[in-house]
């Protein structure tokens, strides 16, 4: 159910062009400070993505845990009912298709992390080390170095900035959902094994050998 919930969340929030994810991520939470003469509002950076992550996570958990609870309560297996039990519990082939989402999520996550680190490093260089550099290399080279670094930084910041944030959120969600999926898969696998063992035990016949024949 974890993966199905993830698929639903993906369909709602992360399908390119129609998903609600970018919209939510773009709306940072604005902190309004009521003053006597005017209203002062400060937009808190990164709150949009955080809210997106929170909404997605909550939706995913809701979609995962509620059916899971219902399954236990009703003692039915929704996956079997919809014919996806084998696909989501036992199947591990075709291997690339099955692993491609998690694989892409990890790559994307590391790419996004690298991007963030680069931005931080470049900003620190531009803002703190550049004046010192001007003293060291001379005023003639300082504008050239500064211009180059700002250009790279601008490039990094301008690289689909809106999608990147949503992508990072999605990656994190996929990785979390994958963890939940693995946990659920192992639980269901164990349950299947127990069921098989139970069935076998039920079909076993007790053979009583009279003591006289021993």
């Amino acid at each position, binding site marked *: 159910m974890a993966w199905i919930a993830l*698929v639903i969340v*993906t369909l709602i929030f992360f*399908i390119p062009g129609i998903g609600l994810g970018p919209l939510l991520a773009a709306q940072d939470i604005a902190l309004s400070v009521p003053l006597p003469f005017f209203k002062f509002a400060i937009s808190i950076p990164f709150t949009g993505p955080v809210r997106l992550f929170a909404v997605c996570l909550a939706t995913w958990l809701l979609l995962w845990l509620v059916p899971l609870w219902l399954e236990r309560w009703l003692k039915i297996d929704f996956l079997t009912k919809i014919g996806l039990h084998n696909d989501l519990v036992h*199947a591990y082939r075709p291997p690339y298709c099955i692993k491609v989402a998690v694989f892409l999520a990890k790559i994307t996550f590391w790419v996004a992390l690298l991007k963030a680190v680069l931005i931080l490093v470049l900003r620190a260089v531009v803002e703190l080390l550049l004046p010192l550099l001007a003293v060291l290399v001379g005023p003639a080279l300082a504008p050239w170095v500064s211009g180059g670094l700002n250009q790279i930084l601008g490039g990094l910041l301008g690289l689909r900035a809106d999608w990147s944030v949503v*992508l990072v959120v999605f990656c994190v969600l996929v990785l979390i959902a994958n963890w939940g999926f693995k946990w659920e898969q192992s639980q269901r696998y164990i349950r299947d094994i127990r069921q098989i063992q139970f069935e076998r035990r039920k079909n076993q016949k007790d053979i009583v050998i009279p003591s006289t024949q021993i």
Partner: protein
Amino acid sequence: MNSNKSDKTDAWAPSSTYYPVPTLIIPCGGDADRLANLRYGLDRRIGAYVADGLVRWTPVLNPSETVSEAQLSDIDFFFKYDLRQRLVDKGYIQHMPDADHPLQLQVLVICDMIGGVSHDAVMAWLEKLPSAVESKKSKIGEQAECSLALVILGDPAISHDKLKSYWPRIYLSKTGWGGTRFNSEQIFQTCQNVIAGFVASELPRSIDYVAGKSHNAVQWIALGASSVLVDLAAVRERYDVEVLEEFLEPLIQDSLTENQCRILDDGIDAQVHKLQSSLLIGKNVAGKDIFGVKEICEQHGWDFKATGQVVERCSPLPTSDIARKGFGSQWWLEEAKSPVFEGSFYRKLFTRIKYGVKLYVDLLLPVPLPSPEIFASLLAENYRALDAALQAGLRHRAGLEYQHLLDIFAFLLNRDSYAGENRPLPLDPNLAWPTGLRAVDYAINRAIDRLTHSADIQYAGQDIHIASIGTDEYWKSAAAEDALVVEGALRRYKRLDKSLSSIWGVILKILVAFPLLYGLLDIFTSWPQWIVILLSALALAILGLVESVVWRLQARQLLRQVREEVNTCLSKRVLSLVSKSLYDYRMIVISHLRPVIGSLRDFQALIVQEHQKIRSRSGEIASKATSREDGSLYRIVDFKRALGTEKVKVKDDLAIEWEPLKGEFAHVWREVERDSLNLSWKSEARKSANVEARRVNENFKKVETALISKYILPLIENPASPLDVIRIFEETAARWGEREFKPRFMETYVLAEEVEALKEGAKWRWLFQHAHPLGDSGKSKDRSLFTVILVPDDNSLVGSTGRGSSHWQSDWLVARSRQTHEISCIRGVVEKSCE
């Protein structure tokens, strides 16, 4: 010596018809063996008279001085009415005795004085015998003329005065006429001739004539007697043996040659192979379909296909219970068959695309798998039913095929016999099949060998294990074992199938990857968004599709292997059932064939044994009983008419004349006067038997063909003791031998012409010389010699070999005899007293 014989011959004339006189022979003496030998020799000549009651034989050993009642008890016998009636009926006597025709009776007393008996006792007994006979006759009260004749073997040394009641008084002594010495054997042989003359000829009358009217003047008559006779008993014995040999000889065959063995090997191998193959497929017999293995298997849900004995396929039919209920799908067993691509180019293209899409769609769809739980019970039921059906269904076929084998053996036993049954020939008649008992023996052995050592079916070059048991429990355990094999094979596929995600599972996984791939591409490229979306979607779709198809193909490959294993397992089991039924059938056929071969071998051994026995018996008779001289007896036992003088193959001109013997060897004799070749009687017997056989059935060209058809062919179908068959051969040979045996042609004077020592009238000389009188007392001064020739008719006296012969003497008397196969000569010396 005086000779006054010529004055009497003119008045003598033999009777036109001679009627013998009932005779009581009373041999008396001290040596029982000699008397028994005398009886034995006489039986071969006058046995018929004894059997008919004309002659009675009452031996008296060591006679005492009195004549007992028992010694004359046989006289009563001659007075019995029914005997007299029988004698009239048989033509021995002319009338029933009455007042005008009193019963004629003669008592011939043979007195052996050589055997050391007491002369006095014998004399006393001889003196009292006439009165005892007279007294007996009076007691009976019938009117009869009874004569008493006496033959003394040895020197009489008795006064004839006391024996005047006897007439004639004959003696045969060791000292013959002119002083010639004779031994006791010669005396007894002469005595045999004399007795035969007394019983069956006019000898008594001729002696009466020679001796004249004054019997009292005659003291003794010394006689010599010789005979040339056709020994009917010996002739018949040899003839019968040789006729039987003629009948049995065609059945005796040499061992088969290497080439004949090869022909039989090839023929029987092909027939056994054909027989085994033919059981696998159905057959239409007289418009009725009779199932073979294929049809029985198909009825029970198995697709069975075989070429010859090689089984190409044996798998569950898609419509069978095993396929439908056990495997649950036709598809599981049968790959989607390629459609027929025909019609226009576009139509073919459309069909191809449709087929390709179907293949791939089918590939991606889940495969329904059998449920092994009910599989074992389905298999057990199927095996049991199939086994029962095979046992019942093949029994009839096996019977038919066994019959076909028997037909082949019958054909090999005798082609003509088989053809006579109006059945289609089971083998190519144009081939030179060896036939006969040896060929059948070899063929049956070969068939048993092939049936024992050749497998009934072959499957994929593997040996088929024969199901040794056929109980329900066995089928259950076999089905359980097979179900386990099926389950194990399926488990391998299931394991792979379970690890494969369905297309929906793949879509779920790819769907999550889509935004991520899009994001990555979007980060690193500056392409328009729709291109990036399209590229991402396409890349993931291709990845999913290609990887799914690759794994599905691998799964399908594994499924094919699994199906192959399951098919092989089930096929082997079904074929083991089939093999069991076929093996049972083979064993039944072999068990039926063994008694057949036993019967035929017994018959063959008996035939060989019988033939050898006949050959040795024939040789024994031939060596013992060829024409030969025994003192005063010349026996003719071998003559060309009966047995032939040479053996010729009947072909060309002879085959036209003796068509029924065409191709056979016949025993013939040449008639020089007419320059012709004649069949011997024994070959005539075979010829007549062949004609009779052909009359019964035109295909039966030889007598043994008819007998084989009637008596030996049934041995093949119903083995029984062959002793009866041998008996049938003996009876048939005896019947035809009897029919062709012509005693009327066995005239002594004719057959004597075939004997060097007797031909051209020399028989008269031989007879005269060997009838030298056995007596010369020298006491009488008045002695007269006479010679009487006893012949059955005048035929022997005609022509240059008869009275016209230089060996014939004019003073010989001729007397009539009833011995149709004898010519005898009696020479005597009448010794008269000189009163």
